[in-house]
């Protein structure tokens, strides 16, 4: 993420056009776990995302401690026991839009996309490919996607005493609006 941002800033300092770059610092990502015992939902409204419309490069970064839960104990267990956010404070995604040529960023509309990249959670990195949508409007672009994440893939250990309360596959939803990057 820092390398992408650095390149963005170098481009701006050299007065290379920043056109084609979209950015947000308050994107939304939620995750949802559903079991017969309990449904758990957490929301993060501070997601940072950058999309380079010229290369298709796409990056997300968020802080695990910025996930909001309804119940205090759930938030505490999530941070202290499951994702160990003191040790692994961030989650990142670095990837690209595979079918960039299908998108006309000058024509408002909804474009189905396929995105591939590397997702890092709890210090573990996995390849992820998912379908989604890019919605182009006069304001900017909205990114939408839903994909499953298995806590076990990221070495997130769920204690046996609560394993029936947490799904083996968590649904992650990305719904983020980016605006043209301007200094």
């Amino acid at each position, binding site marked *: 993420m820092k390398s992408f941002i650095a390149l963005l800033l170098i481009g701006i300092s050299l007065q290379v056009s920043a056109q084609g770059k979209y950015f947000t*610092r308050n994107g939304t990502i939620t995750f949802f776990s559903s079991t017969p015992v309990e449904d758990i939902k957490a929301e993060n*409204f501070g997601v940072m995302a950058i999309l380079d419309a010229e290369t298709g490069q796409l990056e997300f970064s968020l802080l695990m401690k910025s996930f909001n839960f*309804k119940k205090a104990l759930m938030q505490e267990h999530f941070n202290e026991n499951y994702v160990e956010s*003191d040790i692994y*404070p961030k989650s990142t995604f670095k990837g690209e839009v595979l079918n960039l040529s299908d998108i006309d960023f000058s024509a408002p509309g909804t474009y189905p996309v396929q995105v591939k990249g590397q997702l890092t959670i709890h210090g573990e990195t996995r390849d992820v490919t998912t379908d989604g949508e890019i919605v182009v409007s006069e304001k900017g672009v909205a990114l939408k996607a839903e994909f499953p994440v298995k806590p076990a893939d990221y070495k997130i250990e769920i204690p046996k005493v609560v394993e029936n309360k947490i799904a083996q596959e968590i649904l992650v939803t990305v719904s983020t609006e980016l605006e043209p990057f301007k200094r």
Partner: protein
Amino acid sequence: MKKKIFILAVVVALGMGALAYYQFQKPVSSIADVDPEITYTSDELFAYFRDHEKVASQDLNGKVVQVSGSVVDVLSNSDSSTTVVLSSEHPIFGVKCRFEPGSLEDTKPKSGQDIRIKGICTGMTADVEMNQCIYLKK
């Protein structure tokens, strides 16, 4: 005597059950009545994380921090909460403060305004992030 002990045991068990239920169901509490553990300007806080991110994270993440600074941006989030960005030496990034929905209705800050807030520090992506923020009136 045995009957009294039995009744007492039932009452204690019910009490403990009620306490456990309350603990499990208790919502995330507001920091309105919590004093900040430390105070920074937004320049200082950003510089601390920029220059010593690991140390700053260990030092401040999860703690109530008071921050003062100049507003550079006010953003509406998808859940009707508000994010206020405070300035730093960096041309783009600074201290990002999220306020719960409705908590800024009468006092929404404007760009260029100097404000004081307290909130829970959650770390740094490119901005330093503060959550559950409360606006401190002068």
